[in-house]
């Protein structure tokens, strides 16, 4: 048993470090030397497609798996020899994993019974407080099977939080809920995070969920960290084509570098257009094959009749989709196509087969590291 600690006052979050952690199953390497430093009390998302290693990383932090090499530290101390039950972690599982033979109250009381020597009265009071936090006070005597998915999710949160763990792990906790409930729960989880102050690690494959909720996003791909940073860093300054593509929507344009100055690079794109792109410290050299990301919502639309001065690209509309507040277009430029998203008012008079001129701000295109 761990020592009984004060439950009433939050003890703050744990700082979690991964140092060159690798993991493979048999011959399949799942994680290649991952290093992360998660600040105490932060809300961090592990984002990535399935098979990117995000759940494996979570299970390593939980202690369900052991790293092949590398080390994991909580608050600067290695947890290599600490079994999961001594790591002071709360966890919300994808399937919720509520104990079906116990009532809601008994489920939530479970970590207190295992971890502390609190009296029954104190446990009852703490369980009531926690159920109130997740707005499930009225359901204490029910069994999990008598609850809806959203209610089970809240109970799973309560169980994970009840003993004030310094670290909370969540494995796609909203994956099984419908969209409306998911949006609502996202804000709830953020509210709870602010209340309890623990470090939250949240695994998801839904980029909008990660962007909405997180202080930091760790975008993973093929067992490596593709990019880690704040949501806006990942969105505005994607380092790789994968990041630009995964976070939001992006046109990935390829071409070769014509000339390089300190601030900008001139790039001849395969679609037959030459672009001047801000360099932002990306190392490039003349003649190099590179990729540029251009977000559909950064592209402006003009019909040829209103043509103005400046760098514009002519193309033909080959697809037009109505999204309510905006239009989604596919514009063919020689052999390439660009995806464009414009406010509905800007797309008046545009039709499939018609010619349009596209333009964008100078700093909209991003050079990507290849």
């Amino acid at each position, binding site marked *: 048993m*761990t020592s009984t600690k004060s439950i009433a006052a939050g003890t703050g979050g744990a700082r979690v470090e991964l140092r060159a952690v690798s993991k493979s199953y048999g011959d399949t390497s799942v994680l290649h030397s991952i290093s992360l430093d998660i600040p105490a009390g932060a809300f961090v998302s592990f984002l990535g497609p399935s098979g990117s290693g995000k759940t494996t990383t979570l299970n390593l932090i939980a202690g369900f798996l052991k790293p092949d090499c590398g080390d994991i530290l909580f608050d600067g101390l290695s947890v290599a020899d600490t079994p999961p*039950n001594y790591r002071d972690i709360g966890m919300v599982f994808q399937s919720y994993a509520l*104990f079906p033979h116990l009532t809601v109250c008994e489920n939530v009381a479970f970590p207190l019974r*295992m*971890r502390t020597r609190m009296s029954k009265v104190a446990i009852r009071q703490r369980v009531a407080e926690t159920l109130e936090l997740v707005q499930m006070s009225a359901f204490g005597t029910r069994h999990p099977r008598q609850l809806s998915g959203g209610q089970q999710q809240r109970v799973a949160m309560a169980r994970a939080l009840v003993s004030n763990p310094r670290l909370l792990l969540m494995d796609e906790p909203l994956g099984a809920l419908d969209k409306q409930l998911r949006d609502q729960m996202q804000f709830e989880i953020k509210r709870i995070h602010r209340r309890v102050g623990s470090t939250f690690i949240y695994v998801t494959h839904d980029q909008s969920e990660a962007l909405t909720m997180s202080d930091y996003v760790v975008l993973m791909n093929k067992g490596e960290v593709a990019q880690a940073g704040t949501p806006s860093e990942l969105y505005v300054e994607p380092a790789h084509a994968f990041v630009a593509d995964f976070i939001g929507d992006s046109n990935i344009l390829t071409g070769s570098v014509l000339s390089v100055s300190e601030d900008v690079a001139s790039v001849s794109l395969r679609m037959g257009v030459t672009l001047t792109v801000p360099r932002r410290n990306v190392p490039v050299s003349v003649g190099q094959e590179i990729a540029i990301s251009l977000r559909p919502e950064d592209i402006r639309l003009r019909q040829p009749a209103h043509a103005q001065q400046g760098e514009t690209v002519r193309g033909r509309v080959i697809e037009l989709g109505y999204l309510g507040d905006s239009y989604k277009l596919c514009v063919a430029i020689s052999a390439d196509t660009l995806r464009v998203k414009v406010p509905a008012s800007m797309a008046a008079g545009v039709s499939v087969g018609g010619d349009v001129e596209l333009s964008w701000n100078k700093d909209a295109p991003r050079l990507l590291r290849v």
Partner: protein
Amino acid sequence: MSPVSVFIYRTRLLPAILLGPCLLWIAFFFLIPLITMTWRSLSEGGFSVAAYHEVLTSPQYLKVALNTAQVLTLVTIATLILGYPIAYILTMTSGWIRALILILVSIPYWVDVIVRSFSWLILLGDNGIINKTMLTLGIIDHPSSLLYNRTSVLLGITQILLPMMIITLYGAMIRIDRSLLRAATIHGASDLRAFWHVFFPLSLPGVYGACLLTFVLGLGFYVTPALLGSPRETMITQTIMIEATENLNYEHTSAASIMLLVVTMAIVMVYNRYFGLDRLWGGGKT
């Protein structure tokens, strides 16, 4: 389509064609004898339930029924105690270790009951392996009689029913969601407490089901108690057999058989109601 298949399609005869041979077989060799037997049990001196009354009030039948119940209760407890840990290990392991244990568990299951009962004679007999070993080692001076008592009957039936108990328990345990054990562990439970507070209570329905099944299967045992027991260990099937072949009392035999069948069916129905028979072959309720 050929005319024949069109005909089968139009007349919806396919189920009848597929089920027919089996239904005929069951009707001829099971239902008809069963009806005949039921009729006999009711026809002692005209139409009456006298045979049932006699069987139910007979001290001999009562003694045998009690003995049967006692033996099978002990067998059920023994198979449960021996089988639970093995089923648990089967559930928790994977790959070749699980495959090996499964093979070791199921090989005896495929060996004929008579062969397995005889093997106990070889082990426990006066000139059997155990007695010879103990004589050679000087632990005993003359062979002790290990056979033809309740212990030898218990040993035999337990050994024969143990694989069934293990497989049934395993079938129930494998359905327990492993993430529940992880949830218990991450929230502070040691392996032992995770077992005691989560796995064990969730395995109880499987335990009840496996016990019922073991008990029901034991009701039909004839060869094992006949080979390994003495008249004092007589079980219900032996008594029915003796009444039929030696006393030629078909009315009593039929009545006793029908009652045994009813009790068995009742237990099976309870099992099906609470656990689902389809669990036995891997499908069914979760």
